[in-house]
Protein backbone atom coordinates (compact mmCIF):
# COMPACT_ATOMS: atom_id res chain seq x y z
CA UNK A 1 0.00 0.00 0.00
CA UNK A 2 1.29 3.47 -0.75
CA UNK A 3 0.95 4.96 2.71
CA UNK A 4 4.33 5.74 4.21
CA UNK A 5 2.81 6.89 7.52
CA UNK A 6 1.10 3.56 8.10
CA UNK A 7 4.12 1.60 6.93
CA UNK A 8 6.33 3.40 9.41
CA UNK A 9 3.75 2.88 12.14
CA UNK A 10 3.77 -0.84 11.33
CA UNK A 11 7.56 -0.80 11.61
CA UNK A 12 7.23 0.82 15.05
CA UNK A 13 4.87 -1.95 16.10
CA UNK A 14 7.15 -4.62 14.65
CA UNK A 15 10.01 -3.27 16.74
CA UNK A 16 7.97 -3.25 19.92
CA UNK A 17 7.08 0.43 20.07
CA UNK A 18 3.79 2.29 20.03
CA UNK A 19 2.71 3.44 16.56
CA UNK A 20 2.37 6.92 18.08
CA UNK A 21 5.80 6.89 19.69
CA UNK A 22 7.64 10.18 19.99
CA UNK A 23 10.79 8.52 21.23
CA UNK A 24 13.75 9.47 19.08
CA UNK A 25 15.41 6.16 19.91
CA UNK A 26 12.37 4.07 19.00
CA UNK A 27 11.88 5.98 15.78
CA UNK A 28 15.53 5.43 14.88
CA UNK A 29 15.23 1.70 15.62
CA UNK A 30 12.07 1.42 13.51
CA UNK A 31 13.68 3.36 10.68
CA UNK A 32 16.73 1.12 10.67
CA UNK A 33 14.46 -1.93 10.80
CA UNK A 34 12.53 -0.64 7.81
CA UNK A 35 15.70 -0.01 5.80
CA UNK A 36 17.05 -3.46 6.61
CA UNK A 37 13.72 -5.11 5.77
CA UNK A 38 13.46 -3.42 2.41
CA UNK A 39 16.98 -4.56 1.60
CA UNK A 40 16.17 -8.17 2.47
CA UNK A 41 12.83 -8.42 0.69
CA UNK A 42 11.37 -7.37 -2.61
CA UNK A 43 9.43 -4.37 -1.42
CA UNK A 44 7.32 -1.84 -3.27
CA UNK A 45 4.67 0.82 -2.84
CA UNK A 46 1.52 0.27 -4.87
CA UNK A 47 -1.80 2.07 -4.86
CA UNK A 48 -4.19 0.41 -2.43
CA UNK A 49 -6.69 -0.35 -5.18
CA UNK A 50 -4.05 -2.30 -7.12
CA UNK A 51 -3.17 -4.58 -4.22
CA UNK A 52 -5.79 -7.25 -4.90
CA UNK A 53 -4.85 -7.69 -8.56
CA UNK A 54 -1.16 -7.92 -7.70
CA UNK A 55 -1.91 -10.56 -5.09
CA UNK A 56 -4.03 -12.47 -7.55
CA UNK A 57 -1.31 -12.59 -10.22
CA UNK A 58 1.36 -13.49 -7.64
CA UNK A 59 3.27 -10.25 -8.06
CA UNK A 60 2.68 -9.72 -4.36
CA UNK A 61 2.59 -12.39 -1.67
CA UNK A 62 2.05 -10.36 1.50
CA UNK A 63 1.06 -6.73 1.80
CA UNK A 64 -0.57 -4.05 3.89
CA UNK A 65 -4.11 -3.55 2.62
CA UNK A 66 -7.46 -1.96 3.36
CA UNK A 67 -10.23 -4.34 4.38
CA UNK A 68 -12.67 -2.92 1.83
CA UNK A 69 -10.31 -3.59 -1.08
CA UNK A 70 -9.72 -7.15 0.03
CA UNK A 71 -13.37 -7.82 0.85
CA UNK A 72 -14.18 -6.91 -2.73
CA UNK A 73 -11.34 -9.03 -4.17
CA UNK A 74 -12.24 -12.11 -2.15
CA UNK A 75 -15.58 -12.28 -3.95
CA UNK A 76 -13.78 -13.45 -7.09
CA UNK A 77 -10.58 -14.90 -5.66
CA UNK A 78 -10.75 -17.11 -2.58
CA UNK A 79 -6.96 -17.41 -2.57
CA UNK A 80 -6.65 -13.95 -1.08
CA UNK A 81 -6.61 -13.89 2.70
CA UNK A 82 -6.84 -11.01 5.14
CA UNK A 83 -5.96 -10.79 8.81
CA UNK A 84 -6.10 -8.10 11.42
CA UNK A 85 -2.69 -8.38 13.13
CA UNK A 86 -2.78 -9.35 16.76
CA UNK A 87 -0.69 -6.34 17.77
CA UNK A 88 -3.34 -3.90 16.60
CA UNK A 89 -4.54 -1.99 13.61
CA UNK A 90 -5.97 1.31 12.43
CA UNK A 91 -9.46 2.26 11.53
CA UNK A 92 -9.99 4.68 8.72
CA UNK A 93 -13.24 6.55 9.28
CA UNK A 94 -15.22 8.50 6.67
CA UNK A 95 -17.24 11.34 8.16
CA UNK A 96 -19.73 13.84 6.81
CA UNK A 97 -19.32 17.35 8.15
CA UNK A 98 -21.19 20.63 8.01
CA UNK A 99 -19.27 23.61 6.79
CA UNK A 100 -19.58 26.87 8.67
CA UNK A 101 -22.90 28.69 8.14
CA UNK A 102 -21.48 31.23 5.72
CA UNK A 103 -20.40 28.41 3.43
CA UNK A 104 -23.47 26.19 3.77
CA UNK A 105 -26.50 27.89 2.26
CA UNK A 106 -28.91 24.95 2.47
CA UNK A 107 -27.77 23.28 5.65
CA UNK A 108 -31.16 21.70 6.45
CA UNK A 109 -31.24 19.92 3.09
CA UNK A 110 -27.77 18.61 3.80
CA UNK A 111 -28.88 17.35 7.19
CA UNK A 112 -31.87 15.61 5.59
CA UNK A 113 -29.47 13.91 3.20
CA UNK A 114 -27.21 12.78 6.04
CA UNK A 115 -30.26 11.34 7.77
CA UNK A 116 -31.15 9.49 4.56
CA UNK A 117 -27.63 8.03 4.35
CA UNK A 118 -28.04 6.73 7.90
CA UNK A 119 -31.25 4.83 7.17
CA UNK A 120 -30.37 1.16 7.70
CA UNK A 121 -31.35 0.18 4.17
CA UNK A 122 -29.39 3.10 2.73
CA UNK A 123 -26.37 2.39 4.91
CA UNK A 124 -26.42 -1.23 3.78
CA UNK A 125 -26.59 -0.14 0.14
CA UNK A 126 -23.43 1.89 0.70
CA UNK A 127 -21.74 -1.10 2.33
CA UNK A 128 -22.87 -3.46 -0.41
CA UNK A 129 -21.30 -1.15 -2.97
CA UNK A 130 -18.16 0.06 -1.19
CA UNK A 131 -17.42 -2.97 1.03
CA UNK A 132 -16.78 -0.53 3.86
CA UNK A 133 -18.34 -1.19 7.22
CA UNK A 134 -21.06 1.15 8.35
CA UNK A 135 -21.43 2.92 11.66
CA UNK A 136 -25.18 2.29 11.86
CA UNK A 137 -25.86 -0.62 14.18
CA UNK A 138 -29.03 -1.64 12.32
CA UNK A 139 -27.44 -1.95 8.90
CA UNK A 140 -26.29 -5.56 8.96
CA UNK A 141 -29.71 -7.06 8.39
CA UNK A 142 -29.72 -5.52 4.91
CA UNK A 143 -26.26 -6.64 3.81
CA UNK A 144 -25.67 -9.00 0.92
CA UNK A 145 -24.74 -12.42 2.43
CA UNK A 146 -21.52 -12.58 0.38
CA UNK A 147 -20.37 -9.39 2.05
CA UNK A 148 -21.85 -10.08 5.45
CA UNK A 149 -19.89 -13.31 5.84
CA UNK A 150 -16.70 -12.29 4.07
CA UNK A 151 -13.65 -12.51 6.34
CA UNK A 152 -12.26 -9.13 5.37
CA UNK A 153 -15.57 -7.37 5.86
CA UNK A 154 -16.15 -9.17 9.13
CA UNK A 155 -12.87 -7.88 10.44
CA UNK A 156 -14.43 -4.45 10.32
CA UNK A 157 -17.87 -5.39 11.54
CA UNK A 158 -17.08 -7.87 14.26
CA UNK A 159 -18.51 -5.43 16.73
CA UNK A 160 -16.78 -2.36 17.96
CA UNK A 161 -17.49 -2.79 21.61
CA UNK A 162 -14.17 -4.55 22.39
CA UNK A 163 -12.24 -2.04 20.30
CA UNK A 164 -11.90 0.93 22.53
CA UNK A 165 -10.79 4.26 21.20
CA UNK A 166 -7.75 5.70 22.88
CA UNK A 167 -6.63 9.32 22.79
CA UNK A 168 -3.09 8.26 23.55
CA UNK A 169 -2.94 6.06 20.51
CA UNK A 170 -4.31 8.54 18.06
CA UNK A 171 -2.12 8.50 14.98
CA UNK A 172 -2.90 11.37 12.64
CA UNK A 173 -6.47 10.84 11.46
CA UNK A 174 -6.22 7.10 11.92
CA UNK A 175 -7.31 5.47 15.14
CA UNK A 176 -5.18 2.69 16.50
CA UNK A 177 -6.83 -0.19 18.30
CA UNK A 178 -5.64 -3.01 20.41
CA UNK A 179 -7.37 -6.03 18.96
CA UNK A 180 -8.52 -8.78 21.31
CA UNK A 181 -6.94 -12.13 20.35
CA UNK A 182 -10.25 -13.78 19.56
CA UNK A 183 -10.85 -11.16 16.89
CA UNK A 184 -7.31 -10.81 15.62
CA UNK A 185 -6.64 -14.45 14.96
CA UNK A 186 -9.51 -16.24 13.35
CA UNK A 187 -12.39 -14.28 11.83
CA UNK A 188 -15.56 -16.19 12.54
CA UNK A 189 -17.76 -17.49 9.75
CA UNK A 190 -20.87 -16.68 11.72
CA UNK A 191 -22.58 -13.37 12.05
Amino acid sequence: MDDSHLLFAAALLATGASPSSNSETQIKVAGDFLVTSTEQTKFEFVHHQAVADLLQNHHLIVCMALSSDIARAVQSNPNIGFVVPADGTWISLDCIVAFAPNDAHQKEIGEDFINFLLLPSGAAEIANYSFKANTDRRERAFLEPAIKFDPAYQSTTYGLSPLRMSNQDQFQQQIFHQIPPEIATEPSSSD
Partner: protein
Amino acid sequence: MIESLRAAGRLGDLNFQNIPNRKEVEDEFTALPFDPSASSYVPLTWRTVGIAYNVAILDETPRTWSDLFTPISPDR
Protein backbone atom coordinates in the same frame (compact mmCIF):
# COMPACT_ATOMS: atom_id res chain seq x y z
CA MET B 1 -8.85 16.77 8.43
CA ILE B 2 -11.77 17.51 10.77
CA GLU B 3 -9.38 18.74 13.44
CA SER B 4 -7.69 21.18 11.06
CA LEU B 5 -11.00 22.38 9.59
CA ARG B 6 -12.34 23.03 13.08
CA ALA B 7 -9.20 24.90 14.04
CA ALA B 8 -9.63 27.07 10.95
CA GLY B 9 -13.25 27.83 11.88
CA ARG B 10 -14.56 26.24 8.70
CA LEU B 11 -16.92 23.75 10.35
CA GLY B 12 -20.32 24.48 11.82
CA ASP B 13 -22.38 22.45 14.22
CA LEU B 14 -24.94 20.06 12.82
CA ASN B 15 -28.52 20.20 14.02
CA PHE B 16 -29.11 16.63 15.12
CA GLN B 17 -32.84 17.20 15.42
CA ASN B 18 -32.77 17.05 11.62
CA ILE B 19 -30.72 13.83 11.73
CA PRO B 20 -32.71 11.46 13.97
CA ASN B 21 -30.95 8.40 12.56
CA ARG B 22 -27.72 9.57 14.15
CA LYS B 23 -28.83 8.02 17.43
CA GLU B 24 -28.29 4.61 15.82
CA VAL B 25 -24.60 5.26 15.18
CA GLU B 26 -22.34 3.04 17.28
CA ASP B 27 -21.35 4.86 20.46
CA GLU B 28 -17.65 4.37 19.83
CA PHE B 29 -17.82 6.69 16.85
CA THR B 30 -19.55 9.61 18.47
CA ALA B 31 -16.89 11.15 20.70
CA LEU B 32 -13.68 10.92 18.77
CA PRO B 33 -10.47 12.67 19.84
CA PHE B 34 -10.54 15.18 17.00
CA ASP B 35 -13.99 16.47 18.08
CA PRO B 36 -14.99 15.32 21.59
CA SER B 37 -18.23 17.30 21.36
CA ALA B 38 -19.13 15.30 18.21
CA SER B 39 -21.12 18.29 17.05
CA SER B 40 -19.63 18.87 13.63
CA TYR B 41 -19.54 15.45 12.04
CA VAL B 42 -21.48 12.27 11.42
CA PRO B 43 -19.39 9.13 10.99
CA LEU B 44 -20.65 7.08 8.08
CA THR B 45 -18.30 4.30 6.94
CA TRP B 46 -15.07 2.78 8.11
CA ARG B 47 -12.50 0.13 7.29
CA THR B 48 -9.47 -1.40 8.85
CA VAL B 49 -5.88 -1.75 7.77
CA GLY B 50 -4.63 -5.32 7.79
CA ILE B 51 -2.33 -7.79 6.14
CA ALA B 52 -3.51 -9.34 2.89
CA TYR B 53 -1.75 -12.37 1.53
CA ASN B 54 -1.88 -15.02 -1.15
CA VAL B 55 -3.22 -18.14 0.53
CA ALA B 56 -1.97 -20.38 -2.25
CA ILE B 57 1.65 -19.33 -1.78
CA LEU B 58 2.08 -18.48 1.86
CA ASP B 59 2.37 -21.50 4.16
CA GLU B 60 1.58 -19.70 7.39
CA THR B 61 -1.03 -17.07 8.11
CA PRO B 62 0.53 -13.74 9.12
CA ARG B 63 -0.23 -12.89 12.75
CA THR B 64 1.57 -9.67 13.57
CA TRP B 65 3.00 -6.68 11.74
CA SER B 66 6.43 -8.26 12.03
CA ASP B 67 5.24 -10.90 9.57
CA LEU B 68 4.80 -8.20 6.95
CA PHE B 69 8.55 -7.65 6.97
CA THR B 70 9.65 -11.29 7.13
CA PRO B 71 11.24 -12.58 3.90
CA ILE B 72 9.19 -15.40 2.34
CA SER B 73 12.15 -16.97 0.59
CA PRO B 74 15.71 -15.88 -0.27
CA ASP B 75 14.49 -14.01 -3.33
CA ARG B 76 11.16 -12.61 -2.12
